[in-house]
């Protein structure tokens, strides 16, 4: 891989670039109504990631997870799999946690706390605790600082983020039909992903004629809610060379980088700019690459708008031209830089960003789990025919970027490359 922008004075010590790797990825099925506890789901996903890496449970000695009071702890997952840990921590948080925890895992290994870290997210996001605060939680008393939001019916993610989305349309003339193209692209990708919860292809017209949730969001601008767990395994590049798959190396990470005034970020404008504006100032110099070097992106799609806003603020197009960029064909399979080739949160399933890291890891291995035939060597023979039900492997992928989102004011991100 060429290393452009070598003149950039990176704040990450350059020796950390390519020193760590994602060696295992695993997930459960993406369902609604898993019929299992988050403990059982988490165990299943972590076990799959260990097997995928070609490791044994006893090789894992670090475990990290994130949740919002809706999941299990690493203590149960490690216990169930007979793993004795040298480090574990369960942190609060949803979107933007995956890349941030990869950064923590690198720091832990670098500090000598442990050697091989499993990171998981397990949630019954449909059948138990729904993210929008629906169900029993929606009727909970509202107190203290929440009086400045929930008391106004300003609670769910869509409701909370909508002022950013609206203002972007106002500031830059972004059109609903442009943003709808994010759903169109991701649904096409999902149609080539046998594990996706929604595999149906949608049109711009489908999105715009679906009912309003809260303007500017139609139903089909919003992600799916599912029950599932996902896991990844991080270790040093040195150890990674003994694992099963082609190397997928970590170039740089940004963890929960934010806009000013996290207590209520709308106090500090422009509100149509998101935290990616700040995160990119760390991501690109630290990774030693720029947006022009990225082959595929995993821009968080809690909503169609979040994908667009992040691609714009990370510099994949000029500020204000996100609508044009996402509707240009660039983000679709076969385009210049496909985004969320698994179908992402809009279609594959919702696990707060981790499934997009899993997908990019597989893409960098040149081993996307689509319906292409498996050859004599046990590897998929990719056809690069992106018609419905076909291939979703991007040709010659070398470098990827994951752009995690918690809300307009908090972003995490990660650049990975094929080793």
């Amino acid at each position, binding site marked *: 891989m060429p290393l452009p922008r070598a003149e950039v004075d990176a704040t990450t010590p350059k020796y950390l670039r390519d020193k760590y790797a994602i060696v295992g990825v695993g997930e459960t099925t993406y369902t609604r109504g898993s019929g299992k506890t988050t403990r059982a789901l988490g165990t299943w996903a972590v076990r799959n990631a260990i097997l995928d890496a070609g490791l044994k449970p006893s090789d894992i000695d670090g475990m990290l997870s994130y949740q919002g009071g809706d999941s299990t702890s690493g203590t149960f997952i490690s216990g169930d799999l007979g793993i004795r840990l040298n480090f574990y921590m369960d942190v609060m948080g949803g979107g933007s946690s995956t890349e941030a925890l990869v950064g923590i895992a690198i720091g832990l290994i670098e500090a000598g706390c442990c050697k091989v870290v499993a990171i998981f997210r397990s949630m019954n996001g449909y059948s138990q605790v729904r993210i929008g605060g*629906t169900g029993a939680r929606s009727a909970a008393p509202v107190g*203290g600082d929440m009086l400045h939001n929930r*008391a106004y*019916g300003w609670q769910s993610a869509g409701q909370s983020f909508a002022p950013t989305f609206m203002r972007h349309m106002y500031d830059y003339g972004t059109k609903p039909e442009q943003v709808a193209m994010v759903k169109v692209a991701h649904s096409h990708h999902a149609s080539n992903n046998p594990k996706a919860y929604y595999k149906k292809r949608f049109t711009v017209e489908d999105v*715009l004629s679906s009912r309003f949730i809260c303007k500017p969001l139609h139903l089909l601008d919003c992600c799916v809610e599912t029950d599932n767990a996902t896991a990844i395994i991080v270790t040093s590049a040195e150890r990674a060379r003994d694992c099963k798959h082609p190397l997928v190396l970590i170039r740089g990470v940004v963890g929960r980088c934010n806009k000013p*005034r996290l*207590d209520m970020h*709308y*106090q500090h404008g*422009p509100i149509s700019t998101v935290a990616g504006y700040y995160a990119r100032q760390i991501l690109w110099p630290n990774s030693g690459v720029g947006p022009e070097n990225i082959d595929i992106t995993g821009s968080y799609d809690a909503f169609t708008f979040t994908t667009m806003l992040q691609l714009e603020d990370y510099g994949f197009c000029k500020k204000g031209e996100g609508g044009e960029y996402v509707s240009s064909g660039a983000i679709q399979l076969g385009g210049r830089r496909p985004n969320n080739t698994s179908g992402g949160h809009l279609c594959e399933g919702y696990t707060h960003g981790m499934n997009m890291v899993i997908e990019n890891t597989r893409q960098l291995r040149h081993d996307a789990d689509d319906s292409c035939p498996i050859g004599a060597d046990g590897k998929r023979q990719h056809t690069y025919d992106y018609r419905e039900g076909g291939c979703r492997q991007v040709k010659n992928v070398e470098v990827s970027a994951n752009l995690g989102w918690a809300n307009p004011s908090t972003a995490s991100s990660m650049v990975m490359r094929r080793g």
Partner: protein
Amino acid sequence: MAIRGEYLGMGLTVDDLDVENLEYFRHCAEHDFHLQACAQCSRLRYPPTTACPWCATLDSTWKKVEGRGSVHSYSEVHHAIQPAFRGKTPYLILLVDLDTQKGEPTPDEALRVVGNLATPDGQLAPPEMVKRVGIGTRVRMVFSDVAPGLALPQWTIDETASQPAQVWRYPQE
């Protein structure tokens, strides 16, 4: 002392240790909007905080602030999540730039105060009123009374102000 109230069937509480919010809502209950002003740099801040976001000074005083401004952005909710708001759709969530301290200390900053679009007596606005409001609409503050010591600041169309010729609304009705 802690406050407990009910608004649209939804329980609202302020704990007795939460002195910043107690003081904020006490002024609202008197229909007299106040914000904290920093004891050092004098800047106003919203919502209530425990220190000054610009100079980190802990001390502040409560200062009367005029409840007038223009809509900076909004959402129009059609699918209510909370039971309190079912049957109230569509309702507007407004983010309003107060005229006071707008563009300070940097051009992109403002005191952006949240509220629903309401009638002058503090009831959630009917659909025909919702249709009139967008980015740029001039609004004035009104209050929804909840309990002694607790009222929610809300926004209503400022019928006395000169309104922009056209406000920006989401293109698809």
